[in-house]
């Protein structure tokens, strides 16, 4: 076997596919007996982007990913991963993609150094264990997998998945169970992969993660795509009310109850009054004028557009109501 050397971040492209999409899924259906887990799913992922599959537990994200990764046979539909049909060309697929599964399956006695060699050599490369330094595992190279923390295990599985410089990476809940710091570190690593031309497809139910990380995302409910687009597009497509939160020194907005155009007061808590407004600009101008009229002093003012999480809750609620 001819061996290739992998350098730390030398993600030179090994093949060129004359297609703007790294992944194309058309009318994907997956049935488990009578239960339809994935129902007519269609989407495309452009090369060099981070694409997120979002949805509540049991929505079909992992099943869809596993069909794409060739781990499950699809019931019907078409899948093309860099021009490869996962059902037909399993071997070729695994040389091209990197996969981080939801649960990392590495033998307990295997050290990170062993894992890099083990998986790397099956991909036909001599892995650069310096990659472990990049993933913050430099001091843990010879520690058995079973002794690593959850975050270290996650980072090792991501390092192993990217050791052979795959063109496309599939990550299933990559930051599940991680603390804030580890999650941010992983986000940085994932962005760096995208920045060197890799395509990343990730399943997550962490809305903040998807909003910060993904260039494009799809929300899946009951096996179907409920909405797809950039995080801004997805958020903007829903309830357009902006949340305005205000606090003053003398509590004039609590006692005075100002009339704000296109806004409704939704809560008062800990000296803060919260409004939802269809016209945030006009509402804020009116609110500031009211505070000045009352000879009060502004302490805190926050204007927040609807978050992806709120949009997600809205979609989920609508779907449940429709069902």
């Amino acid at each position: 076997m001819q061996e290739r050397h992998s350098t730390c971040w030398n993600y030179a492209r090994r093949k060129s596919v004359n297609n703007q999409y790294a992944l194309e899924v058309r009318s994907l259906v997956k049935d488990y007996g009578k239960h339809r887990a994935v129902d007519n799913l269609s989407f495309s992922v452009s090369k060099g982007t981070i694409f997120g599959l979002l949805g509540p537990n049991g929505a079909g994200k992992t099943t869809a990913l596993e069909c794409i990764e060739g781990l499950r046979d699809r019931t019907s539909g078409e899948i093309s991963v860099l021009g490869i049909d996962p059902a037909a060309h399993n071997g070729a697929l695994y040389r091209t993609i990197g996969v981080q599964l939801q649960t990392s399956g590495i033998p307990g006695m295997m050290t990170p150094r062993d894992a890099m060699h083990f998986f790397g050599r099956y991909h036909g490369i001599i892995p650069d264990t310096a990659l472990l330094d990049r993933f913050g595992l430099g001091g843990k190279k010879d520690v058995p997998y079973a002794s690593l923390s959850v975050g270290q295990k996650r980072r090792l599985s991501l390092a192993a998945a990217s050791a052979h410089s795959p063109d496309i990476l599939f990550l299933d809940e990559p930051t599940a169970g991680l603390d804030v710091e580890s999650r941010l570190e992983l986000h940085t690593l994932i962005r760096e992969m995208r920045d060197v031309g890799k395509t990343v497809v990730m399943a997550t139910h962490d809305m903040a993660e998807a909003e910060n990380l993904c260039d494009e995302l799809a929300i899946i409910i009951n096996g179907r795509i409920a909405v797809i687009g950039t995080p801004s597009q997805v958020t903007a497509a829903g309830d357009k009310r902006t949340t305005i939160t205000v606090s003053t020194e003398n509590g004039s907005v609590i006692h005075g109850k100002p009339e704000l155009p296109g806004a409704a007061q939704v809560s008062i808590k800990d000296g803060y009054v919260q409004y939802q407004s269809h016209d945030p600009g006009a509402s804020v101008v009116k609110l500031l004028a009211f505070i000045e009229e009352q000879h009060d002093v502004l302490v805190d003012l926050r204007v927040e557009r609807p978050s992806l999480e709120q949009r997600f809750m809205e979609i989920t609620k609508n779907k449940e109501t429709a069902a």
Partner: protein
Amino acid sequence: MNGYTFHLIYDFKTGLRDKSLMLMNYLFPLAFLAMTGLFMAQINPFFRELMVPGMVIFAVMTSALLNLSSTMITEREAGIYRSYRVNGVRALSLVTIPAAGHLIHAFLVSVIVTALSIFVFGGTAPVHWGWFFLVFLLVSLSLSTFGQLIGIVSPSQRAGLLFAQGLYIPSVVLSGIMVPQDMIPENLNLFTSLLPAAHGIRGFEAFAMGSSASTYAGGVSLAVLAASILVNLVLCLKLFQWEDKAEVKPRRFLALLAFVPFLISLAV
């Protein structure tokens, strides 16, 4: 070094690093040898003639049936096979590498067992070492592929232990590794002939130990062991599962085909 070779070396090293594997590969068979060497030879003088082949088969069988099957089930249940699969590891590697790794451990422990049996406990030394090695090879591979088949078709650790013990305990008692086969009641012959260990003993006696045992029967036993290796490997590959929650349930009853070569031997 390619992935297969690295995997094989890793598998071998794990057999030494992992305490429970180490126990079943080496320590338990050696402790059993010490116990039987000290006491069995006093109770049953014929045991000295059986000691080398019997204890070699015992050591090989313990690691093959009790270690290999449970390791396979553990790895499948922990999702390790799925990780292997998405990294391009083939089912053929996962079937052949544990068998090859087991063979190396079996060889090492057999060398120790043979030396201790002869030089410490007064066991009879083999006369034909070449035949001894050939029979060892066949019986080791037959038992390791049986162990793997059990690991592959067992839906859980509990079932795996049950199936493995179902072959292991009768083999210890009836295959002739503790008492000579001609002392075992004739009405158990049919059952005894289904045990790979019994054919191993017949092979050792006929070709390696210089006894008066029938070379025809020994030859049939070696052919049965060789055939069982092939049948088991085919069944392992056919029934191999990457994960526990496989959508298409494997036809586990097909594993019983592993006994076909042994059944045929009854008619020969």
